[in-house]
């Protein structure tokens, strides 16, 4: 089991959650989503995102519309659907629970030794 692989597995689990989070405030163009995820070092290659967006859209968590752009062809703008919002709410709760759980385990196991 190598470290890179383990890290990738971790990122993979929360990538969808992150996409929904990015879209929770305002709608975004694919490149904006990519930019944010790259800045946060959540994805390594851009290609990862496209199958994921399409899958989320097929699951009706996301919707998109075409918007004219000042430069180049129309762009795809993604937005959260109502279903997506509910889904995000559940993910939020479970993420907080997860963070809490990891923190707790951290504390009980690491502090006595230090």
């Amino acid at each position, binding site marked *: 089991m190598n470290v890179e692989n383990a890290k990738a597995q971790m990122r*993979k*689990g929360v990538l969808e959650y992150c996409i929904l989070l990015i879209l929770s405030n305002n709608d975004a163009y694919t490149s904006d989503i990519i930019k944010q995820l790259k800045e946060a070092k959540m994805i390594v290659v851009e*290609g990862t995102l496209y*199958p994921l*967006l399409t*899958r989320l*859209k097929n699951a009706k968590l996301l919707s998109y519309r075409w918007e004219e752009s000042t430069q*180049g062809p129309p762009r795809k703008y993604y937005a959260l659907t109502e279903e997506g919002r509910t889904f995000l709410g559940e993910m939020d709760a479970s993420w907080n629970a997860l963070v809490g759980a990891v923190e707790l385990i951290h504390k009980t196991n690491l502090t006595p030794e230090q």
Partner: protein
Amino acid sequence: MKKTVTINISGQMFFIDEDAYKCLQSYLTKIEATFRNQESGDEIITDIESRIAEIFNERIKRETGVVSINLVHDVIATMGEPEQFEEGEGHEQTEYTKPDAIIYPKSRKRFFRDIDKRVLGGVCAGIANYFNIDVLLVRIIALLLVPFTSGAIILIYAVLWIALPPARTTAQKLEMRGENITINNIEKTIRDEYDEVKRNFDKFKDSSTYKKGENFFQKFGRRDKTTLIIIAVIIGAALFLQMPHFNGLIQAPGAMFASLSYHVVPTFNHIFFPGALTFVLILLVIGLIFKTVFKIILYIIAFLLLGSLALKVVFWLFGGFLLMC
């Protein structure tokens, strides 16, 4: 100096260097092969293409306006190879088959006619591919067999030409060579072919055969080709029936063995029933009338011819001339 081609990615036109074009094309082929069979695969491919167009627009060289090979490399590095996408392939691991393992987990060699390397029908090239030997060797042996078998090999060749399927698709070509059908292999083959075709075409374009050839091929469709072969076979067979013993090359070494000279290689008409050729002709006609059994009949014909050939060899080795005399 570099040649430039024009491409259209998601509705936008770009000038792109030829080497960069090849690189981009093979990348997009790989992407397509990965996503084509997935749900909403077309959409994913379109999205990726429009993103590539967008990056091109952002980063294209202002002065020249041409997409260079470096830019394509950068784009591929940013987008990532299809194998790297997997990282984000989240929850439903089961529905995603790794592209390397598509359909044929084991590669099996199959007999195909190699129409890329053909002289006549590509049968020899196909045999060479199957046994992994040099095609020149097979052709020489085949030519030598013509006098040795009194021409029976020509009939066998024709039968094989009709019965063996040609290797048309890339998958078939890989199967013919016994290579695994993976995306990498397909990509490699396509690239090789592209180079080869381009080279050949450049050479061929200038020659005078180009225009003649164009007319020639337009005249004959695929169906006509089959008909022509059958006619050729029948005419050939008729000629053989008229022909006296054809000893050809055998006569020379045969003469060295003194009395062995004449009846060394009897034509199979004499030793196989009233004549194998008659049977073959009758069977061919039956096969052409009842198309459904055509393949079976071809096998029977091949068997007949091989049988008579084998008999002839036996006779030749064990003093067939005694029986003939």
